[in-house]
């Protein structure tokens, strides 16, 4: 595949970027709010989901993933794939480990000692 002499289109009007910026700030505020709502294990899921949404907006709009050269998508997707391999293969190790994740006692025998360190 060759990189063709594609002509760069005229830059888009600023409005979509301003709207995306405002949305990212609103999403950041929502992310901050979720930290205080007592959502338990759902809080990090929502927070990292919001971070992923914001990242998508930055990648596609601000980092010009949308637009020529389209070969950029191959690089972006390969980064995502390699990261998936890294996380997936590493988790197969951790998921197979006996006693992981450790049981998190908040009281009872041994807890005091663990809190005080080795």
């Amino acid at each position: 595949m060759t990189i063709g002499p594609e002509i760069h289109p005229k830059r888009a009007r600023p409005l979509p970027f301003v709207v995306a910026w405002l949305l990212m700030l609103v999403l950041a505020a929502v992310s901050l709010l979720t930290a205080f709502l007592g959502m338990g294990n759902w809080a990090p899921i929502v927070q990292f989901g919001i971070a992923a949404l914001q990242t998508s907006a930055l990648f596609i709009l601000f980092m010009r993933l949308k637009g020529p050269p389209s070969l950029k998508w191959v690089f972006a997707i390969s980064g995502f794939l390699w990261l998936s391999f890294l996380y997936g293969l590493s988790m197969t190790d951790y998921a197979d480990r006996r006693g992981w994740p450790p049981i998190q006692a908040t009281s009872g025998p041994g807890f005091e000692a663990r809190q005080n360190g080795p």
Partner: protein
Amino acid sequence: MPASATVRPEIQFATLEQQGDTAQLGMWAFLVNETLFFGALIFTYFIYRISYPHEFAVAAKDAVLWCGSVNLAILVTSSLTMVLAINAAAQGEPRAMKLWLLATLALGCIFLLIKGYEYYQDFQDKVVPVVNYEAKPGEGSAGELFWVFYWVATGLHAIHLTVGIGLVLYMLLWRIRRGEITPAYYAPLEVVGIYWSFVDTVWLFLYPCIYLVGRS
């Protein structure tokens, strides 16, 4: 004769467009490596956070929330000013381009100043592993792992942002002054913009890792 009138593609490229596309692809290839670099770091964080959720929640309460939150807004805004600078370059508005770049530069410096203040606060709070660390009640020895991640991750991020500031300065003081950024060829600025926004995305993920843990 202004330098802008003499911008020609390098000998290995047929056109300026091809040269610009190649520059963009080079930056994306670099960013794939950066993604894996920060991705591996954040993976270790997840492993330890899953292993020691209580200790991490207690330790993270000492992170200065307002610093992290304001810095998030600053970085997101700086991505906007950067893209507006590139827009101005594409439309042949050098004055607007310089102003937006100066705004980007200022926002980057404000980020680092707030980060410096936060580091000072962290030192006062005795959360600097090895140098000045005092375990809080309930965080145990695993709480220190959180702070090791904090210093490594935010330190690496600050280094990347400093490089970004250097690149923006290089654009302002060298490439633009020499008339090398024109509507016909603004790829160098675009490449710096891609890098800048990537540094922004890293903070988007560090923010929930560090500042939003154990708040409720």
